């Protein structure tokens, strides 16, 4: 069977890339080649930017209520193809089908919220700032924006931005992750069906070179990025130097505090989902379980946690009995296996070794790891401080909530933090004092809904306004202030 080569979508047309440089996209569960993705040329990137730039004047003059009708049609198509879109995500990424369906639903919710743009984009005014003089603010679109997407939520993350950008009247370019570009290609087939004017949305496949070409292009007004902290810093610096707006949502090392009054039995499913959902490859994953309480409570928690992690069924995400899929590629698996090795050398106790594989079905071992749990982890160990992005949990201890918060605030990341407790006082103190952009109270994955901004602080976020919700509307517009007097 011929393996297809993905195309770019530029100016309302599917076009084959002129590039001979191709990368393989493989199904991580079965280690099978799915397609080839081209590393597009600079000329192709510039063509996409030009198409988006040319489309902008007419698009920004299209009434918001008309612009959002395209999004409403897109929602219909996404609902119609819901399961098809979800299966592609599992195939290219490895996540379970439930997780892919969750991703599709989240993506649709982004489009739903963006389709409320006639209300969201409204400005404000004040009559009589001086006698007979009025002042008002109008939010206007700026031009061409782009997003540099990650592999871990290949379908959803571009939609944290794209629908809001175009609803505001901008035009847009997506550079999908070369590791998982298929679901974006499928999304753009829907855009093609929706019939947006040519150039309003564009897709250019590629890797670092394409990203650099986009960031360096003078006609790009702003860039959104989701990925690692080191790359996010580069994106932020480059865009800052070029005077572009930027949202860079980056790495994480999220703590989950378990207080001695936590409801352990009813929390365990939520904790498993937090630490091992999406195979630990998400910026909101729990990484460190920080247990407050005496030895007996700690033991009770650790025993339950390790047992639950050991029982997780690992295999092909399309198998409905499977609870955790593979790492997205073999390099990720090797990297995470290296982290486990380093954790042992640092002196942590390996309570559950995910390198000892126990897989559902006859899938090859290539990209798989089972859940790993370390005990006796201390805050100074790299296990506790560095982002792993894999199914590895570290158990730490703190004598009380004050110490737990000090430990959390002592690491450079500030993406998310959660507390499991039945005490409102502790929950309130945690919410108030912890330096994290997204806080969970008895919630393991603090994923803000599409109508709230996606928080993030310290090394987990670079920018001014955040993705999603009202923040992203501000990002994709600029206030024009008018002061008027009539003689």
């Amino acid at each position: 069977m011929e393996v297809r080569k993905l195309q770019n979508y530029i100016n309302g047309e599917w076009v084959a890339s002129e590039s001979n440089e191709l990368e393989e996209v493989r199904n991580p569960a079965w280690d099978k080649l799915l397609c080839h993705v081209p590393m597009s040329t600079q000329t192709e990137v510039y063509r996409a930017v030009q198409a988006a730039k040319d489309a902008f004047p007419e698009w920004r003059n299209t009434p918001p209520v008309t612009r959002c009708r395209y999004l409403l049609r897109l929602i219909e198509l996404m609902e119609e193809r819901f399961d098809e879109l979800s299966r592609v995500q599992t195939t290219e990424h490895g996540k379970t089908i439930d997780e892919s369906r969750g991703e599709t639903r989240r993506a649709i919710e982004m489009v739903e919220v963006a389709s409320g743009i006639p209300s969201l984009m409204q400005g404000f005014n004040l009559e009589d700032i001086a006698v007979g003089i009025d002042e008002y603010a109008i939010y206007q679109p700026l031009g061409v924006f782009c997003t540099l997407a990650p592999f871990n939520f290949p379908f959803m993350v571009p939609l944290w931005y794209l629908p809001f950008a175009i609803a505001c009247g901008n035009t847009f370019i997506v550079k999908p992750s070369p590791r998982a570009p298929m679901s974006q290609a499928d999304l753009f087939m829907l855009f093609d069906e929706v019939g947006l004017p040519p150039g309003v949305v564009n897709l250019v496949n590629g890797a670092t070179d394409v990203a650099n070409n986009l960031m360096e292009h003078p006609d790009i007004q702003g860039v959104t990025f989701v990925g690692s902290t080191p790359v996010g810093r580069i994106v932020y610096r480059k865009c800052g130097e070029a005077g572009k707006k930027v949202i860079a949502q980056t790495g994480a090392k999220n703590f989950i505090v378990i207080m001695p009054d936590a409801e352990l039995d009813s929390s365990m499913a939520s904790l498993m989902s937090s630490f091992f959902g999406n195979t630990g490859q998400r910026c909101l994953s729990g990484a460190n379980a920080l247990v407050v309480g005496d030895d007996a409570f700690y033991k009770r928690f650790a025993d339950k946690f390790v047992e639950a992690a050991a029982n997780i069924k690992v295999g092909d995400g399309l198998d409905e009995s499977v609870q955790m899929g593979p790492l997205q590629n073999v390099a990720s698996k090797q990297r995470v296996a290296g982290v486990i090795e380093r954790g042992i050398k640092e002196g942590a106790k390996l309570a559950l070794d995910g390198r000892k594989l126990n897989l559902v079905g006859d899938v090859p071992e290539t990209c798989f790891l089972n859940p790993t749990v370390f005990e006796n982890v201390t805050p100074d160990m790299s296990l506790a401080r560095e982002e792993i992005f894999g199914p590895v949990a570290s158990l730490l201890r703190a004598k009380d909530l004050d110490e737990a918060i000090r430990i959390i605030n002592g690491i450079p990341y500030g993406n998310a933090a959660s507390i499991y407790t039945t005490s409102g006082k502790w929950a309130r103190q945690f919410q108030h004092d912890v330096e994290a952009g997204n806080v969970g109270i008895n919630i393991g994955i603090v994923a803000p809904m599409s109508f709230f901004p996606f928080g993030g602080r310290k090394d987990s976020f670079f920018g001014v306004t955040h993705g999603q919700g009202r923040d992203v509307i501000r990002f994709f517009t600029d206030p024009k202030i008018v002061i008027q007097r009539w003689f």
Partner: protein
Amino acid sequence: MKLNTMAAVMSFVSKIENESAEFYQDYARRYPKTGETFSSFIKENKRFEKVIKQTYFGVITDTIEACYSFEGLDADDYEFVINSAPGTTLADALRMALEMEDKIEKFYLTVAELSYSLMADIPVAFKRVAKKRQDRKFTLQSLLETV
């Protein structure tokens, strides 16, 4: 067969709703006296499946603990045997239906309980359908008393 995930639960919902609909279709043909009641059950089955799936697809997100909520849930506990032998009497068919509905109701109540604190609207949908199955058992019992 273990039902570890919400996806597996959903597939099992389709299976039991379809199989029970087939049962009612078969016996509605054989015993026209039950035709109206059984036909309404068949329509309901489709609606129940739709309500549950709409709820699932409507609220499933990457935050929901869909893969980890169903510890211990086993399809084998809720499988029902349908005897479609030609000589089956109406009374036997109704007794089978009662047993089948009882298992389906128990399945829905168990899923609602397991997902109660985790799955947003999903346990509500399961409870609603379980209540309807309970009503259906009263109808079947009344029919059985008239045979």
